[in-house]
């Protein structure tokens, strides 16, 4: 495809997005949550547009990294439009499934996505290595985009741009997890000891998580019962990550906001991916794919064919 054609289709896509945003405002939405120009050429920053004039700055591309679904809970009760990539739409679907959002208050502008950039792989101030019409090269993308199963929104009122094919990485989407789990058990234990040793307890991972909805009632800040002390020990830091993983078990859509928010680059998404994989194996449940589904830990079956019977065999 020639550069001139690219530029033309890029402008068409942008115009379509801005028109959809204006339509949403006309249909009664108070705000359109999307992305606009960021602090450097490769980044698109969240943009909340409340007027057609502001909608004219909306944009999309590999720099549109942030999952905007995390803002929706704070806006509940107001009608808003939100731009969603495939992964973001899963967060919205999961929040709808849990009754934490109302579908009639949302206008979903779906944007099929070819992958977002990993800021740690880019030099500061580097030119944008791709745009909406022409995807960025794989080696600059967030690793989770290279194993993306849902590039197209699972839920949208209007979809803009060409559909994208799901990724099928060599060795399956969990090859890196399998490699980690194949290491000796003590090494895995020391891995978390080392990684969490530098944790600052800033809770950016929790605050960025679209599914962390407890707000001021987070277990990490309760003092009675005292789940965590104020001590800066690796034990508290690691236990907090287990709390976060367990509280999002069967709900986490692996959007990666937690890991991206971490100022010291701790691979916190790994635990959540393990739980999501096991929830799928045990309960056939892929979080955030259907707003009508019941989270697997809120229900049960009298007979669980996938769970071994830990009582029948003597002394297992």
């Amino acid at each position, binding site marked *: 495809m020639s550069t001139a054609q690219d530029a033309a289709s890029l402008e068409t896509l942008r115009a379509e997005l801005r028109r959809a945003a204006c339509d949403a405002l006309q249909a009664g939405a108070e705000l359109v949550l999307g992305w606009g120009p960021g602090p450097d050429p490769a980044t698109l920053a969240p943009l909340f547009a409340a007027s057609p004039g502001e909608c004219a700055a909306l944009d999309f591309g590999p720099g549109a990294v942030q999952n905007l679904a995390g803002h929706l809970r704070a806006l509940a009760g107001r009608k808003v439009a939100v731009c969603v990539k495939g992964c973001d739409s899963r967060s919205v679907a999961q929040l709808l499934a849990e009754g934490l959002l109302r579908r009639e208050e949302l206008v979903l502008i779906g944007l099929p996505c070819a992958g977002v950039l990993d800021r740690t792989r880019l030099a500061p101030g580097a030119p944008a290595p791709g745009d909406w019409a022409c995807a960025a090269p794989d080696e600059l993308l967030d690793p989770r985009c290279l194993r993306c199963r849902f590039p197209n929104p699972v839920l949208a009122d209007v979809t803009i741009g060409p559909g994208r094919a799901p990724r099928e990485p060599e060795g399956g989407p969990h090859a890196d997890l399998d490699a980690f789990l194949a290491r000796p058990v003590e090494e*895995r*234990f020391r*891995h978390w000891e080392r990684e969490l040793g530098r944790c600052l307890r800033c809770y950016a991972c929790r605050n960025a998580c679209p599914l962390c909805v407890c707000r001021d009632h987070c277990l990490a800040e309760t003092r009675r019962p005292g789940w965590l002390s104020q001590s800066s020990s690796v034990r508290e830091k*690691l236990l907090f990550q*287990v709390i976060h993983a367990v509280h999002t078990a069967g709900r986490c859509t692996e959007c990666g906001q937690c890991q991206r928010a971490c100022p010291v680059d701790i691979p916190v998404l790994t635990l959540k991916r393990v739980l999501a994989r096991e929830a799928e194996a045990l309960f056939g449940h892929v979080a955030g794919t259907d707003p009508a589904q019941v989270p697997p830990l809120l229900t049960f079956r009298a007979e669980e064919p996938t769970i071994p019977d830990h009582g029948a065999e003597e002394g297992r």
Partner: protein
Amino acid sequence: MPDPAADLRIIGFLCNWCSYGGADTAGVARLAQPTDLRIVRVPCSGRIDPLFIAKAFYGGADGVLVSGCHPRDCHYSEGNYHARRRLELFLRLLPALGIDPGRFLYTWVSASEGQRWQQVVADFTARVHALGPMPRLRETDLAAAALCHPAAPQEGA
């Protein structure tokens, strides 16, 4: 006989209605049991948050045993069904945390199964002993460690 030097720390979370009764039955029948187990009685296995188990491990337990009523026998009809899903999922998280899944067992023991209780405790204790003590967490960030334990001498000092 209890032997504090050779014992490991195993925490047992037992439901009030079945397994605690089962342990009591075993005691009344004077069935000999290993002394590594410390029992916490909870109203129902459905009360057990997987985080109890995580907190026990990181607080120094070498093994954690959870026992409740058999499925279909819950005093509250469905507590153990919910527990079963949560505990199975948590069991499968343990390898990723670097905790040997053999250190955790959840099972079902009814109030009349004193003999079975003895067997469960003996087998599980033997299994944890075969794995040895759990590794203890060390501070890897020395600046953080100094904040945490200002009086403790630094390694090599």
